[in-house]
């Protein structure tokens, strides 16, 4: 199905059948589809930009990307954060070449146009070469994104028509609170972060975290044994575990409260959480306190993921159809003792970073998933996404679209359904809400 070859609108839902359980491989390879993703998804959806703790002081900044658009997140005097394009309005050069830091202005290296930390054009070098009336500086500031935050996570979108962040996250807030609001004081990122390139389509990273508990047992057998006294994962137990999906965001999880924390290989962290769990239960309820720390993984549509318990937090920044940049951090509770923060950081980094004993095996798989589609015959085939296709349940406590057993392709299917919904939509009001919200306008803690 070539796109637009006869001028008709492409229908991206034809790249999958989520009732039959398959996805077309071309969405992981073709340049036209990727360009459409930049337009339809990355220029429209709310995307994770930074954690509040990365910009603690006025004039702190951090540079990142929304799709392939470089942006600067900048802390304002009033405590708010602005996000604007990292490109001078004169000839387009980047106005910031550093990853992060603190500054009073952003000055372009090319001709010395200077922008305030609010993104407004403040001054030009040798301004006298311009005659009066040549430029109205108030009209040539940097393009601003809409910014909002949820419990420490800063998000932005370039689409004025996008729904509120609260509506975009929807009932997924109920799940996010397990990670972000389990303790007074909320969360923070450990200093620094690691970045690396993987030569794979960005969706392979996101879908792995959105629902793929299945791969853990096989791909990560060696890493899990290394971290867990040579004991492998317990056999896959489909009971007491779930997939939950809201607007393409997905959380797969068990309810033993233990398995992911054990992967850190840090006994004092296990002890810490065991002591904390009754408090967590008081705050979030019994069910959510048991979800935390279980074998679990999470993705926010379109490209942000984390592992509750292991505490790696990351974004998958697209760099063309066959490459992404992974940025990863360790997320901890602000109120944890330093000793626990450090133990989590060490365990997290030892398992999930390019040198991590679990992560090392993932990139290799995703590059293989992607590169094979160079083959024209290979690319025309389908991929199977049918695991647990008949296991949908209604659960009185769990919001969203819920399937029983975390060994399931349900969250992946619903991620791709959301992907197709956004790829097809002319405007946000055309994007359907496919679950029945329970928490609209309500707090989730």
């Amino acid at each position, binding site marked *: 199905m070539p796109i637009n070859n006869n001028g008709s609108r492409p229908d991206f839902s034809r790249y999958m059948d989520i009732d039959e359980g398959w996805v077309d491989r071309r969405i992981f390879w073709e340049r036209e589809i990727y360009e459409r993703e930049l337009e339809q998804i990355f220029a429209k959806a709310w995307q994770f930009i930074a954690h509040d703790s990365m910009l603690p002081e006025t004039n702190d900044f951090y540079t990142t990307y929304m799709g392939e658009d470089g942006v600067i997140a900048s802390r304002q005097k009033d405590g708010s954060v602005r996000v604007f394009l990292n490109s001078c309005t004169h000839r387009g050069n980047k106005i910031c*070449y*550093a*990853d*992060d*830091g*603190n*500054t009073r202005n952003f000055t372009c290296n090319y001709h010395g146009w200077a922008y305030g930390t609010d993104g407004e054009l403040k001054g030009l070098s040798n301004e006298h070469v311009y005659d009066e009336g040549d430029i109205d500086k108030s009209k040539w500031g940097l393009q601003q994104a809409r910014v909002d935050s949820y419990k420490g996570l800063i998000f932005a979108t370039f689409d004025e028509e996008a729904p509120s962040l609260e509506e975009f996250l929807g009932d997924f807030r109920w799940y996010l609170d397990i990670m972000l609001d389990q303790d007074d004081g909320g969360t923070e990122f*450990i*200093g*620094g*972060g*690691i*970045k*690396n*390139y*993987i*030569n*794979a389509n960005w969706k392979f990273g996101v879908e792995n975290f959105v629902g793929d508990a299945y791969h853990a047992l096989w*791909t990560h*057998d*060696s*890493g899990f*044994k*290394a*971290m867990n006294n*040579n004991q492998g994962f317990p056999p896959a137990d489909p009971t007491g575990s779930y997939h939950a999906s809201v607007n393409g965001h997905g959380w797969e999880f068990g309810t033993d409260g233990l398995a992911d924390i054990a992967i850190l*290989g840090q006994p004092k962290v296990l002890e810490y959480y065991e002591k904390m769990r009754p408090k967590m239960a008081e705050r979030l309820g019994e069910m959510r306190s048991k979800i935390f720390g279980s074998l679990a993984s999470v993705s926010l549509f379109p490209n942000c993921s984390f592992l509750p318990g292991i505490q790696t937090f990351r974004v998958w920044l697209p760099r063309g159809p066959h490459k992404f*940049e992974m940025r*990863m*951090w*360790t997320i901890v509770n602000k109120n944890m003792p*330093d000793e626990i*923060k*450090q133990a989590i*950081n*060490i365990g997290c*980094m*030892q398992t999930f*970073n*390019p*040198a991590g*004993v679990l*992560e*090392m*095996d993932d*990139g*290799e*798989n*995703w*590059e293989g998933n992607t590169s094979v589609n160079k083959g024209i015959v290979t690319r025309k085939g389908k991929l199977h996404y049918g695991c647990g296709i008949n296991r949908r349940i209604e659960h009185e406590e769990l919001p969203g679209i819920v399937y029983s057993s975390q060994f399931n392709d349900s969250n992946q299917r619903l991620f791709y359904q959301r992907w197709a919904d956004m790829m097809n939509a002319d405007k946000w009001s055309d994007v359907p809400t496919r679950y029945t919200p329970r928490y609209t306008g309500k707090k989730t803690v």
Partner: protein
Amino acid sequence: MMNNTEQNANANSAMPSLELMNEVQQFLYREARHHDNEEFRDWLDMLTEDIHYWMPYRYQRYRRNEKEPTILDTAYYNDDMDCLVKRIIRTETGTCWSEDPATRSAHVVTNIEVELTDNPDEFTVYSLNTVHRNINEDESHTMVGHRTDLIRRVNGVLKLAKRKIILDQNIFTNKSLNVYL
């Protein structure tokens, strides 16, 4: 960035003997050979029990904002002996799929400098480790680590006690770091 002030605090300006320089050089070459040949248990024997193996995140900031990484920051490695043993166990499980077929690697150690310290059994050693990695059909990567080591003589034998590795990349350009820099 390259200087480890903590280790340099004990620097002794006297020149190391040729014999010592030769011994250190041979030590680093042997270590590189163990890595090339995946003789990881032999490599572990070259480390002290209190080894600290550290490869921090490298900040890319404006000069006026420059910041040294600390051991509390994120890092590629921030390992003690227990952590390093776990890494080796992974490769011994028989289920380490991404290491089969085996990685082909060449660890090229150069720019070796030996500095005496106030402790006659401890030496600060600087070196550059250029690692060429070739994997799968034709994937070829080169990684460079600037190393500052503390090498200690224990019962007459040299052992590595501390290593700080500074990568020359900001975004690490490979999917995995399965070789030791």
